Structures are given as structure tokens and as C-alpha cells.
């Protein structure tokens, strides 16, 4: 019972926050709504027993990524008029159509009878089990991710260097 209350509270809040991200006219409000959304998602992860994932969700997304968004928005400092010009009508139509298509697909998937194929695991989500998986089963993807991050760093440095250094 309590679980259901918490689940519906956080899910409902997450949906409201996501709608607010899309509908807000000011980018700052959108980012702050996204923050609320991330926290709700973290809460849902905690309810699934994935404490580590929840912590990462807060630290990485709510912490680092959203701060980056805020920086970009503040640096660009777009005027409302400039933003109004960017509201392309066709783009909105296409976006709505694509979103409704995905929603329809999701509804079709969820209405499927029978139990979910993934059984809720009791061990996933703890730091120990994630660490073990990362360095055994998922060693190659883990190492590959480090090269991805290296490429991103090199790319950022390359693109950000001053012209005078050329």
C-alpha cells in the first residue's frame, strides 16, 4: 500500500515535470523541471532497490549534466524574442506525431498479457555487484567506454582551443 502511494506520487510528479520541461517558455524553468524529473526517477530507482543507480542519477544527471545545461543557457542568454522565432510550427507537429506514435507503441507493449520477462533482481544495484559485473562480464565495454571518454576529452580540447594557437 505505502509502496503504491510512493510509486504513483513519484511517477505522477515525474510526468508533470517532464511536461513542464517541454511546455515552459523559459529555458531556465525547463532545466529546473528536468531537475525535478531526475529526482523523481532517482526515487523510483530506490524503490526498485537500485540504490547505487539512484545515487548516480542524482550525482551525474541532477548534478553534473544539469549544471552544464544551466551554464550553456546562461552563456547564450537568449532573449524571449529569439526563442519565439525558433518555435517552428512544422517541427512541433512532427514532434507531436512521433511522440504519439511512440506512446501508442508503449501502450501496446504494456497491454500485453502475462508477467514481465525480467524478474526483479535482488542483488543488482548494490555497489559490490555493479563493480563485479563491470570488471568481469562487462570488462570490454567498460574499457571501451574509457576510450569514448578519452575521445570526448580530446575533442573538447581540440574544439575549444584558441585560434591564436593554430
Amino acid at each position: 500500500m505505502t509502496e503504491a502511494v510512493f510509486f504513483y506520487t513519484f511517477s505522477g510528479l515525474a510526468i508533470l515535470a517532464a511536461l513542464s520541461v517541454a511546455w515552459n517558455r523559459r529555458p531556465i524553468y525547463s532545466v529546473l523541471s528536468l531537475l525535478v524529473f531526475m529526482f523523481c526517477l532517482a526515487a523510483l530507482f530506490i524503490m526498485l532497490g537500485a540504490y547505487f543507480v539512484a545515487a548516480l542519477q542524482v550525482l551525474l544527471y541532477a548534478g553534473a549534466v544539469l549544471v552544464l545545461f544551466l551554464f550553456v543557457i546562461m552563456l547564450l542568454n537568449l532573449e524571449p524574442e529569439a526563442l519565439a522565432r525558433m518555435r517552428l510550427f512544422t517541427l512541433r507537429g512532427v514532434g507531436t506525431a512521433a511522440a504519439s506514435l511512440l506512446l501508442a507503441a508503449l501502450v501496446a507493449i504494456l497491454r500485453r498479457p502475462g508477467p514481465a520477462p525480467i524478474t526483479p533482481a535482488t542483488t543488482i544495484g548494490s555497489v559490490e555487484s555493479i563493480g563485479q559485473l563491470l570488471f568481469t562480464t562487462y570488462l570490454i565495454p567498460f574499457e571501451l567506454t574509457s576510450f569514448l571518454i578519452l575521445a570526448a576529452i580530446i575533442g573538447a580540447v581540440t574544439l575549444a582551443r584558441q585560434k591564436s594557437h593554430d
Partner: protein
Amino acid sequence: MIDIPTIPWCALAPELAVATWILLLLVATLCVPAHRQSVLSHLAVLGIVVAAGLLVWASQHPSASGGTAMLSLDRFGGYFKGLLLLATAVVIVMTRLPRQLLTHVGAFYLLLYTALLGALILVSVNNLLLLFLGLELLTFSLYIMAAYVKTDPRSVEAGMKYLILGSVSSGFLIYGIALLYGMAGTITFTGVRAAFANTQPTPVAGQVGLYLILAGLGFKVAAVPFQLWVPDVYEGAPTPVVAMLSVGSKMAGVVAMLRLLDGLVAPVQWVWTPVLAVISAATMLYGNLGAIPQTNIKRLLGYSSIGHAGYLLMGIATATPESAAAISYYLLAYLCSNLAVFLVVVIVGGATGSDSLDEYRGLSRRSPGLAAAMFIALLSLAGVPPLAGFVGKLLVLLSAVKGQRLWLVAIGAVNVAISLYYYLTVVKRMYLEAPNTSSSIRITPLAAATLAALVLGIVVVGVYQQPFLAYIRSTL
């Protein structure tokens, strides 16, 4: 006790060499002084040679074959790894040519190597997680390389467009993977395949997931309707990057599709193949018709590469071992021809400072050798016998005939004629029109040797198909 899975390190030797070289290049970039940058390109070429040597060694090593839940390290993948190393070597040669506007070559080579690593992973992928990571590593490096010439606004625009559309396609891909995971509870190809084989009727989640993955990969191989970025990116990005994009990235995407079709989609092929056939027809028509009015050689080649993606998709839609062999052969032919064309574009662009088609006027009188190489490469791309491109197209069309898709074969045959038209307009400019200036274009010995080798490849692969085909069939 932690259960440690055995990783076949011997079979991974080429990838490990490339990974090591990424780190070596990182250190070298920081240590080598600015006036001795040529050391870096020598180092980069050496890395390719080492990786190629290890690839040959690994293919002969008895314990090297087989695979894991992550990668299937078979000879089929080994063949494409060889082609990818070859393509990267040619791209490095291109960066050595004059006036490529590339500063800080060290970081450029590093990104080229990370792209190569991603592509190497993709051609032997056996796991949805690695499919995503390999694709990200490849395209991430290419985003940055496309925007590498910061002084050129077109280059920055190309990088930006590629980044935005590429990110959207990655979103499709990861959503598709999530749906498949939700359906099967696993991300290994064999696991998802088993889930598809055991569930009747096929779950909606699985179908939607497969379509989303197809959309994500469609961006990478430039298939209609995900091809809009191609002409602009091809026009704006530095030419060596475009060469890597059109050969390496496309090859990796196509082989990843083949791997998916064979390893994961096989029980539910009907989900993919009709859609792929329609996409293939649309892609061929869009690419070849779009190329006709172009006045910039790189834009023209962009549309032409869309057209070629259509033929490759026709092979994938046919989904027989024969069509897989046809695609493998087609990619070899496409690699030689396209790299030769791009090498000429780099040389001419470096000499004239422009990529306009007008620069090719009277090229036969200015530099007969260059014009002859371009002539042969373009005819091979168009599919004129006895060159490599002809055999590639013929094999793909034949496999589609046997796969009972005659309407697609008809469209493919019509497209050969259309493509011949716009390739020949370039030839007409080179041979029949008067040159703007009479000065000849200087070619460095390195570029001349590489170009000669590629043209030789086009002819040899086209005339003596049998040994190549026999090798390809033995890898399947």
C-alpha cells in the same frame, strides 16, 4: 569467489594494438614539438602496420577463433578489419598531402584511431551494449573530425549538423535496445534471438525495438529517410574525414546490420526484410537522382554514397549467405574505388583550393595520370565491366534475383544507368572541356603510389574475382 570470464586476448590483438596506439599517440602529441609533426604521421602509419600484422597473426593462431558473449571473433570480422585498416592507412596518407588545412595533426590521428577502434568493434559485435558503444566511439570521433578545421565555417557547420542528427539517431538506437532488453531480459545477440524464437506471436516490444535499431543504424549508413545530413556534411567536412565517413563508417554500419540480421533478427526476419527492401529502393533513387544537379564534387560523392548504401541494403534485405558474400565483395570494390576518387579530390582540392566540379575541366590535359585514375575509379563506382564495382553490383543483383525480389532488381538496374550519367558528366569535364589553366597539378610520390595501388586494386579485384570470392565465401 568472483567468476572471471575468459577473454580471448590473442584474437583481440589488433584491437589491443589500436588501443595501445591511441595512448601512444596521446603521449606523442604532447611530447613532439610543433615543427616535427611528420613524426606523428609516421607513428600513425606504423600503428596500422602493427595492427595489420597482428590481425594476420591472430587469424592464424589456433586459439584465436571463436568468440564470447561480447564479440564474435571470426574470419568474417577479420576480413572487414583488414579493409578498415587499409582505409585508415589511405586516410592517413591523405592528411600528409599539401594544403589539408589540418593543424594539430596529433589529435586528429588520435581521433582517427578511436574511430577505427569503434569500427573494429562494430564488425565483430555480438552484444547490444557493444553495438551501442562501438557506434558511439566511431561517430563521436567523426563528429569532432568533421568540425576539425575551425577556421572554416562550413566545417564547423558540418560537424554541428552531424552531431545533432547523429545524437538523435543514437537516441533511437538506445531506445530500441532498451525495448529488446525489456522483452528478452538480456542484451546478448543469442539471448535476444532465443527470446524471439520462443515467443509466439512476436511481442510488439521486440518489433518496435527492431525498427528503432534499424532507424539508428540507418543514420549511420545514410539510408532514406535518414540521409538528410549527408550532402552538407560531405561538402563541409575536411576531405580525409569524408573519406573515412563514406568508407569506414558505412562499412562498419553495414556489417553491424549483417551481424544483427544473422545473430539476432534471424527468427523474425520478416520484421526487417520488407522494410529494408523498400528503404533500399528509396535510397538508391534518392541518391542517384539527387546527384545529377550537383556542382560540387564532394556533394556529388555524398549523393553517390547514398546510392551505394541502397545497393548494400538490397543485399541485406535479401538475407541469404550469398547476399552476405555479395556485400563483402561490394564493400571491397567500393573501398578501392571511393578511396581512389577521394584521393584525387584531395589532390585537386589541395592544388586549386576548391571542390567545385569546374576545377575538373580539362584535367586530362593538365594531369593525364590523375584524370585516368579518376576515370577508372568513377567507372568502377558506376559499375562498368570489367572493373571491381561492376562485379560487386552484379553479385548483389544476382543474389536479389535468387531471393525473388525482381522489382528491387529492376530499380537497381535502372539506377546503374542513372549513376552512369552523373559519373560521366565528371568524366566529360575532365576529357572534353578546355582547362581553366594549363599548369599541371603536382603530385607527391606518396600520393601517386597510393593512387596507383588503389587503381590497380580496382582492376585486379574486377578481373580476377575468383580468389577474392573464394576467400570471402570461406569466411562465411
